[in-house]
């Protein structure tokens, strides 16, 4: 049951490298539209993320999960606005 390759990555835009403007962590990112973003982290990137290290668990049974790094979100947004991450027209 080996998971296969996402047809959107082979037929459309691939994941592309983006560096966080805050901590320099390197991730792979992709946008399917202005409103959609995918991010693939590595163990090294997760270890480098400052916001992640500073984060405390939220309340509730699922509070341990880290929701998002705002600096990385901003970095990807900037990369998209600057045309480094292509955004399909729709």
């Amino acid at each position, binding site marked *: *049951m*080996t*998971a*296969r*390759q*996402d*047809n*959107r990555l082979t037929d*459309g835009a691939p994941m592309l490298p983006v560096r966080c403007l805050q901590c320099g962590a390197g991730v792979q990112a992709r946008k*399917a*539209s*202005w*409103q*959609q*973003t*995918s*991010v*693939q*982290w*590595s*163990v090294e990137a*997760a270890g480098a993320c400052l916001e992640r290290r500073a984060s405390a668990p939220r309340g*509730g*049974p*699922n509070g*341990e*999960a*880290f*929701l*998002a790094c705002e600096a990385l979100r901003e970095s990807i947004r*900037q*990369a998209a*606005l*600057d*045309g*480094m991450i292509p955004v*399909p027209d729709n």
Partner: protein
Amino acid sequence: MTAVESEHDGVRGIEAEAAPTRFARGWHCLGLSERFKDGKPHSIKAFGQKLVVFQSGDGKLNVLDAYCRHMGGDLSQGTVKGDEIACPFHDWRWGGDGRCKQIPYSRRVPLRARTAAWTTLDQDGMLFIWNDPEGNPPPADVTIPRIEGATRDDWTDWVWSEITVDANCREVVDNVVDMAHFFYVHFSFPTFFKNVFEGHVATQYQKGKGREDVRPPAKDGEPKMLGNTSVASYHGPSFMIDDLTYHYDVMDIDSVLINCHYPIDENSFVLQYGVIVQRSDKLQGDAAEQTAAKMAEFIAKGFEQDVQIWKNKTRIDNPLLCEEDGPVYQLRRWYEQFYVDVADVRPEMVERFEYELDTTRPIEAWKREVEDNLARAKAVGGVPSLDGGAA
């Protein structure tokens, strides 16, 4: 015909390997623990086997392979005697650790009189068992988080249901990435949706508005539904906790929803769901119980629709996705970690992956910003760039 044309004209095949006969490593919930605490043995079909669940005299819940290693008697038809389960065939006594403790008509228990025993966890009113084809105990960091409301007086008791589904359990797990089904099944309109897969946890964050086309506007004096916030995590392969808050103009209703399953075999599973609701000054007494019951009813309807799809659909390993679909492939890559030996878990199965859809920032705002960016770049006579790496 050119190669490109033939590629586009070709019929897309549906590919699917047979469902794995191996069962997932992880904690599985067998249901509310109270149900097993009546002094009788209970028969459960799970992981392609028959299991016996019984409460020993010390109050602990135990789970063993149901078949007696002596002559194959069914222990789930037997009797609890003290801390042991007695086989109905020849009264052999088995302890919760899987060892034969006594044979009433024999002076000695033979060597190797040991059966399969599952590690159990009785927590927050639910019975869990640890399944591991490699036979290892649960690692310390692979746990089911505590649910505070489950043991508190200001929350309702669990409203719990189960149904047997004739499909492989991957179908229900796929739901975690299915944004569209919120609109069609849960009558909710997500304005923010995010999946995060990391380690053994898969999370779905969601903020939604109620759909006014299906939910009639509140009458005068009734609370007006504004939307909901949901944080739902699969802790391992089969147990999802949904921390769900409904927002009204005059109050919030906090609830916890469980969506969990255990495989009967590779072609069927038992799907279970439970709800608890927090009482408040706006939701007192029976009103909280009624809300929990109503929510359970609502979930049941949603799952009934899902089940209808699942039992008729075909298994598909190569779904053809459009850009508006969620991260099905990445979810399955995460899910695969539970079906391989621990030594064979690859980094990409557990490394963090995020998929986010945020509709709260309108597309027009994005486009305006791009135009501003271009205008600014034009004014300074260059191309828009990030730290010099031109586009």
